[in-house]
């Protein structure tokens, strides 16, 4: 990737709260066109990093978003960056129409006609008060607003938290089919890894404010492999030091890091791991290494 296409450049980002470190020397590069997933347990620093990207918190280290300082150039940045977070509650006293008109008034890159068109495909009425909408409908409204903004970067922090399955599926399919065009960049943090798996182009695993693993989904699918060994190859497969051993439908499944696919194919069925499994394996390894130190 060319340097000019970098959207987020983070170097040695640190953030300390009274109850401990949220970010402890975190580095990240996000390029135009990527859909980057931030994955980690509670307290890993995902939300803190996304808040720093939006200029909401002071941090130590070097952070540039679209070539701007999120704190100093926050106003300009927000004309080019959109966000949906579960914390950013829409004003319950407003009607849908009032919110659209407000955003139209303050956002230079908002297309009111487009927002109305997107909303017309949903069952959200412009006259409805936000307090009368379900949580899923509010997120849908927020997404409709974001989709009508010509932004370069979309920050999603647990955007589907608390939604039922149908809304979650709808959210991501709408995001990819109707919003993402290859020129935009999306950074997502979520606990529901399995739902964004097919959406992401890149991923970063965080733990205790630090990167544990990162890479493109394509690269990770080549580096990490799952093997469902045949019964007579169990011992040979185990000898290759799997990162994780689990059982699926009564059969053992081994997850490997950096083992040649051709070698594994001799022992059974080989396929890329689910991100959730990879996450568990990497976190387990990280914890064990931490304890060993």
């Amino acid at each position, binding site marked *: 990737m060319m340097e000019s296409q970098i959207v987020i450049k983070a170097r040695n980002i640190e953030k300390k709260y009274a109850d401990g470190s949220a970010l402890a020397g975190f580095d990240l590069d996000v390029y135009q066109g990527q859909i980057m997933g931030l994955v980690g347990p509670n307290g890993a620093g995902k939300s803190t990093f996304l808040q720093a990207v939006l200029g909401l918190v002071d941090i130590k280290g070097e952070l540039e978003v679209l070539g701007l300082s999120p704190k100093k150039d926050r106003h300009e940045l927000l004309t080019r960056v959109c966000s949906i977070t579960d*914390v*950013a509650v829409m004003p319950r006293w407003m009607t849908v129409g009032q919110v659209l008109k407000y955003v139209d008034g*303050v956002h230079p890159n908002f297309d009111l006609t487009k927002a109305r068109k997107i909303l017309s495909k949903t069952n959200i009425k412009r006259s409805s008060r936000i307090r009368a909408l379900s949580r899923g409908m509010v997120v849908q409204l927020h997404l409709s607003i974001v989709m009508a903004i010509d932004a370069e970067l979309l920050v999603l922090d647990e955007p589907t938290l608390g939604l039922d399955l149908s809304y979650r599926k709808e959210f991501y399919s709408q995001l990819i089919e109707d919003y993402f065009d290859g020129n935009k960049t999306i950074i997502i943090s979520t606990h529901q890894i399995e739902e964004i798996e097919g959406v992401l182009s890149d991923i970063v695993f965080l733990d205790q404010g630090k990167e544990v693993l990162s890479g493109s989904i394509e690269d990770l699918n080549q580096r990490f492999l799952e093997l469902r060994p045949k019964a007579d190859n169990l011992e040979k497969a185990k000898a290759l030091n799997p990162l994780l051993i689990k059982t699926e439908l009564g059969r053992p499944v081994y997850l490997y890091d950096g083992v040649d696919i051709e070698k594994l194919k001799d022992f059974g069925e080989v396929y890329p791991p689910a991100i959730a499994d990879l996450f568990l394996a990497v976190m387990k390894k990280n914890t064990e290494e931490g304890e060993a130190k």
Partner: protein
Amino acid sequence: MKSLKALIRRELQEHKWAFIYLPWIVASFMFLVVVLVFVGLTEVNTENFSFSTEIYTDPDIIKSMQESTLEERKGAIRAGLLVLGSPLVIALGFALLAFSLSTFFDERKDKSIIFWRSLPVSDTYTVFSKLIVATIVAPLLIIPALVFLHLVSVTAGSTFFAISDIVPFTWAWNAYPWFDWIRIIFSLWLQTLWTLPILTWIMLAGAYSRKPVVAAILPPVVFVLVERVAFASTLFFDALIERLQPWSRASSFPKEYENLAVSEISDIPLLFGTLEFWMGILISGIFIYLTIYFRSKSDYASVE
């Protein structure tokens, strides 16, 4: 300008009861009082003003009305309209206090502040827009209700007087002080600037505290008590009361302009020449700066 319009519209939508409905409710109530007085069902008596059926039954009053000069009529109508309009101004005062208390607190309480701050509007601009609403827009919004109240009341009075053959229908209209509306607008704008230190102090309490009522009231109360106990003086308390009174009655303003009702537009700039006025603006500036600072520190943790 487009974003300022959107910000002001948002404030008026959120506080429509305080700024849009309340003046009309008060004006309608006052008009009802006027009609009830004319039909003899009630009467209004204040220290300096009396309004009852005597106005068209007492021979002395009738005689003085018939013989009154244009200036005397103008003065009588002004006094009447001032009393009629006072509840509207008092309602505006309460609306502004409620607005100041809730405007920065509610957005933290319902967590919408993160949504507002996700849009390209700076904290300074947002605070600025709320100050414009409090000092310029809200006073303007009581004017239509005030004008309505004045016009229907004078119409009702003129009709009663004409029907009772006391004075012709045009008696009041010929002396109607039309320019008073403009004077009232400027007076109200200056009044809110005069009260601005109190409004911005309350806004600041809403911007940082989880208990804004306590944060707004407790420090001044402590300050007043400490001053009284330690220095046996009441300077701070007196200054507070002065700020809550109409500016033209405040001790800092020349005594000859004591009564808001008789101050002319040309008198208004006199306020700008007083040190107390500018001290208030300076103190308000400090509170506004702190409000912007606290709002700019809002993150997820501050609303969770």
